[in-house]
């Protein structure tokens, strides 16, 4: 039985019409997401997705299939595990240790906190890391009579760089891993070494800029006051919950390394381990779910359906032909796609862009005469690192700006650009250069 839709009832149900309507829906949704001042991105994405079903661009079953379950499971699972770790006070202990190590020295503070943030971001999502680190950093720097904003920006930049290293570090990587069929180990092998070098260079640049701007000068010299500040850090924790959380988190990461051997998707592992943790921890599920970013999940849900409409109507196939005309070999493709991804991700949300480009690469792989794998890594580097370009380039930036403003230290658009743009330009060039070099030396 043919599926009756509103469009077919009014005589607009032809394949060609659906093709253009799906493009219009995507463009409209994207426009609403960009116009953040007027629309929240979550209802915008949900409206786009449900409108696609409403008009019949995709069937309800097709919409359900368009949702990438692996991505959704991975996000939900990791958010639950992180929620338990937050509840246990693990991050409070880490930051308190960091403060004790740095002893109030601004240089050591920025170095320690950015390194800690980058490492945490590689294994936890960036928004969670920023949500945790920024309030602590603001509290410490303001007590030390330092300007918190440059430190907050440095932390956000480190978060976006660190998140690029692994499959679970940043939402674009989760999408790329799932749609491109890459394992956790693939990310470690292909991206982690590049990210380590990129982080070192990025750190040198933002620390250099902070030093030049005078943000690393010691303002509080009274030793007694310094000691009091360090000891006053409120550290509430639950050792048993932390132990359970870290054991489950550790096993989850080990299983991620083995997921291709176990023939299990990363999402299945994350959700399974999250369920084990909830049973074992005996914490109220309601308390744990409070920290799950439901709005992010809803955003993904809506976008998958909108993008599913494009895929269903053959738009990506055509886009792949177009891209194939521009990218004729993978080596130039690394630079073109990587650079383009970084620029676009810097000015608009990188999640819809990555989703759309992933489908283009899937279709490109069917027709291209070369292996498109290097392009996937270029997309990952560009989309993740490009997020540092402006304050709206990544969700973590927006969250950090919100937190900083709430504490009385607003981050102006150009303050961020002044620190973020040079770091982004250099890190993107270095990262794409290293990726290019890797394939130039070792072949594809």
């Amino acid at each position, binding site marked *: 039985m043919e599926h009756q839709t509103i469009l077919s009832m009014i005589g607009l149900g032809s394949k060609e019409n659906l093709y253009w309507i799906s493009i219009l829906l995507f463009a409209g949704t994207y426009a609403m997401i960009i116009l953040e001042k007027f629309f929240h991105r979550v209802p915008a994405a949900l409206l786009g997705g449900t409108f696609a079903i409403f008009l019949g661009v995709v069937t309800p079953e097709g919409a359900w299939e368009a949702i990438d379950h692996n991505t959704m499971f991975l996000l939900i699972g990791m958010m639950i595990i992180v929620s338990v770790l937050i509840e246990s*006070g693990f991050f409070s*202990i880490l930051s308190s*240790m960091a403060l004790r190590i740095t002893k109030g020295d601004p240089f050591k503070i920025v170095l320690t906190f950015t390194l800690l943030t980058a490492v945490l971001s590689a294994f936890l999502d960036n928004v969670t890391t920023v949500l945790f680190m920024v309030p602590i950093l603001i509290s410490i720097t303001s007590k030390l009579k330092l300007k918190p904003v440059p430190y907050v920006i440095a932390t956000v930049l480190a978060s976006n760089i660190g998140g690029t290293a692994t499959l679970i570090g940043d939402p674009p990587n989760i999408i790329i891993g799932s749609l491109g069929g890459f394992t956790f180990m693939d990310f470690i092998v292909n991206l982690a070494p590049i990210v380590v070098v990129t982080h070192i260079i990025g750190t040198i640049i933002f620390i250099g800029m902070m030093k030049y701007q005078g943000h690393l000068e010691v303002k509080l010299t009274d030793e007694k006051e310094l000691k009091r500040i360090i000891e006053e850090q*409120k*550290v*509430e*924790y*639950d*050792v*048993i*919950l*932390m*132990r359970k959380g*870290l054991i489950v988190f550790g096993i989850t990461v080990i299983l991620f390394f083995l997921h291709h051997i176990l023939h299990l998707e990363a999402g299945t592992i994350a959700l399974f381990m999250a369920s084990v943790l909830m049973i074992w921890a005996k914490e*109220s599920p*309601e*308390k744990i779910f*409070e920290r799950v970013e439901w709005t992010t999940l809803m955003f993904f849900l809506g976008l998958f359906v909108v993008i599913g409409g494009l895929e269903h109507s053959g738009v990506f196939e055509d886009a792949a032909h177009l891209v194939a005309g521009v990218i004729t070999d993978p080596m130039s493709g690394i630079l073109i796609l990587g650079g383009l991804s970084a620029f676009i991700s810097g000015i608009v949300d990188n999640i819809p862009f990555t989703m759309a480009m992933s489908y283009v690469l899937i279709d490109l792989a069917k027709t291209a005469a070369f292996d498109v794998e290097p392009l996937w890594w270029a997309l990952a580097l560009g989309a993740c690192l490009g997020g540092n370009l402006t304050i709206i380039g990544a969700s973590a930036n927006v969250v950090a700006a919100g937190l900083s403003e709430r504490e009385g230290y607003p981050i102006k658009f150009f303050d961020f650009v002044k620190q973020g743009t040079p770091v982004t330009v250099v890190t993107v060039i270095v990262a794409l250069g290293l990726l290019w070099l890797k394939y130039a030396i070792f072949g594809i």
Partner: protein
Amino acid sequence: MPVNKIVFLQKGNVNFNNLKVASFISQKLQKKLVLFLIEVPENQKEKVKDQLFSLNIDFEIRNQIEYGEAKEEIKAEKPDLFIITREKISPFEHIFKITSSERFIKGFEYIDILLLQEDCNKIEKILINVDKETATLYYIKSAYTFAKKLGVDFKMITSFYEVFYENRLRKTHPDEEAKQLVAELFKEHLDAVKEKIARSLEGEEVELIVAKGDPKKEIPYYARKHQYDLLIINEDINDKDSYIENSEMSVGIFKDEEGA
């Protein structure tokens, strides 16, 4: 049947800081101090004796006991109080390691236990937790009597998990109404704890601190922040192990009823 003795267990090297505290408790409570010295070097045994003689403590030494049998021996002694040294480790180390003393006290019932932190050489401030649900009148009275007899500064504390109730009620009630209901629950919590204390102490006055937050995290945090030397909790409290492991100080685990 009153037994009037305190057992103090030491394995390997004697912790003389803790011995000083155990002697102090024994003196103040006027109970005999029975020392279980396991694998303790001879010269230290002599030093222990000298120290206790000089303090004029009524004591007895048992040093023929194997560590594996110590638990049963102590249970058979039925002491009023069992004291053991707890290794001092950071909360971060604690994630990966349960101290031997914490393992040792598992399975002890109907005995008041004192886990003395390795570096504890005095008890001058005691915090007694009064859990609304599980603290019994017997427990409150015995913790109070213990602190009173030591003649040190002590306070009672209870914690109300405000955020937990507020978040739950906000799902089903408008914000203002939820706040109102939480305020009522808080009052109810406080009244119940105050009533328990009043009934237990039969009119004797004691200062009660009211904290807000998850009790198993908030109470150890409060004790740490205000530099208490000892936190006392009741044996049947929920999440007992969490209270113990979250406290970077000496912890007393007092029984809820007279028995065994």
